């Protein structure tokens, strides 16, 4: 078993809501991300997945339990939308972020900004302002920004859910390629079952609020993973059953929406 990049043990978290009431978001949640793993956290919308990422990034503190995470300067974040500085070019966005991190990490970067822009297919567009790029390119720039600080752990909060399905597919292919190249640990939050199965080495299925881990599933389907692979369909059924989404329809039909390629 490789060393763990991040561990949450029995973590609970509540928020104050209005007058005296409180919302219990995480309940005794335990999960481990091994070094170099691609862990997908999968659960229904609004189940507190972003809170899990918040605790993993060190921005939020848990009420109870233990969080063993890398130092802040070794963590990078990709949000649901690109969140680039609109008044700085793509290249400046990366440079500003790299410069900010450089002092904290105390060791030089292995690759240049240009390397990361080229890998993201943005080499030609380095002097463009974000608004001049498509949504997919902006999100890729945002992934490039996260990778460019050469993090030990990359946290991604539904990074493709705001994109159309066709663009999202291309982004997933890009992400898998970069993950292979850079070998950092990725923790990827999503509510898209097939997205989790296509991307992850293991899937942590989380319940509705308060979030608990229902099951951790290691995905042993070889890559590239085809959606019509029967093992994918079996996994999908298992996860949907865990989440209580079993509508009794034949399995083939359920796989159809993402089967159009």
């Amino acid at each position: 078993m490789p060393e763990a990049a991040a561990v949450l043990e029995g973590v609970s978290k509540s928020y104050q809501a209005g007058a005296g009431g409180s919302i219990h978001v995480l309940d005794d949640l335990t999960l481990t991300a091994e070094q170099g793993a691609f862990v997908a956290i999968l659960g229904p919308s609004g189940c507190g997945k972003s809170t899990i990422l918040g605790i993993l990034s060190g921005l939020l503190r848990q009420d109870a339990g233990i969080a063993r995470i890398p130092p802040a300067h070794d963590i990078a974040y990709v949000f649901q939308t690109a969140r680039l500085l609109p008044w700085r070019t793509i290249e400046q966005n990366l440079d500003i972020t790299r410069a900010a991190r450089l002092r904290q990490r105390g060791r030089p970067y292995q690759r240049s900004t240009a390397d990361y822009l080229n890998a993201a297919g943005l080499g030609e567009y380095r002097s463009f302002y974000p608004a001049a790029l498509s949504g997919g390119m902006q999100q890729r720039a945002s992934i490039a920004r996260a990778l460019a600080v050469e993090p030990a752990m990359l946290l991604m909060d539904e990074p493709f859910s705001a994109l159309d399905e066709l663009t999202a597919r291309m982004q997933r292919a890009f992400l898998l390629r970069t993950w292979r190249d850079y070998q950092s640990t990725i923790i990827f939050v999503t509510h898209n079952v097939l997205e989790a199965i296509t991307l992850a080495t293991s899937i942590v299925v989380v319940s509705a609020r308060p979030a608990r881990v229902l099951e951790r599933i290691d995905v042993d389907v070889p890559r590239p993973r085809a959606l019509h692979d029967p093992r994918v369909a079996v996994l999908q059924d298992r996860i949907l059953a865990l989440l209580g989404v079993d509508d009794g329809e034949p399995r083939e039909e359920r796989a159809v929406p993402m089967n159009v390629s």
Partner: protein
Amino acid sequence: MKRTPKALYRLLFVASVLLVWWLASTVLFPTVIPTVGGTLRTVWELLTGTQFYQQLWVTTQRVLLGFAIAFVAGLAIGTAMGRSKAVEAFFEMFIVIGTSQPGLFVSMIFLVALGLSSVSAVITLAYLATPIITVSIWQGAKRMDVNLEEVATVFGYSRVTRIRHVVMPQLAAPALSAVRTGLGITWKYVVMIEMLGLTDGVGYEVARSFQLFQLQSVIAWTICFLTFVLLVEYLVIRTIERRIYAWRDRAAGALQAPDTLAEDASLVANA
């Protein structure tokens, strides 16, 4: 290509003003309104002499000083109001009263209380312009992008980086509108204050001509003064504006990526 028609319409505006004036001074009220030719001659005399520039310099100094103080105060109060509910509540009445106060009365009170001097003029101008500048900055500070703030936190941006790359660009637009409205108010009130109680400056000169019933001279001074204010707007403020919004124009204009979906597709094909 795009500039010619715009300049043409601006010239057309000036021409129509001159036409109405000419009609008024020859046909409608020939005994009251001074002629175009005579007034323009006085303008020419003012512009080729030294008196106008001396007085304009005196007035401009008061404006710049008063505005600078107001801008610094407005920036400080406005950002504090945007960041803290307590500060916001404290200064709220100051804003409501300050933006609707009668500047003439305030000027009288200040001039009598502080004495008829350049210093009291500057203080009065600063006081009058502060509320309107504060409003602009306050609104801007309230609308700070929380998402970008989070990016800055996650990636450990230092205070300096944060201010320079995240906060200042967002405050640039409201700050520019604050410069516009703030300068507008100070130009307007400086001449009034000079008329009321000072012994030099453009306002004083105009008041003197007025007391001697020299309407032609009053108009000539006004024209010269307005021309200067226009020059400041077109040469200084518009230049700053173009620089601030460069990223917006360039994002929407020439530097547009080609068919972006095709570009995405080619990237994956290369994978």
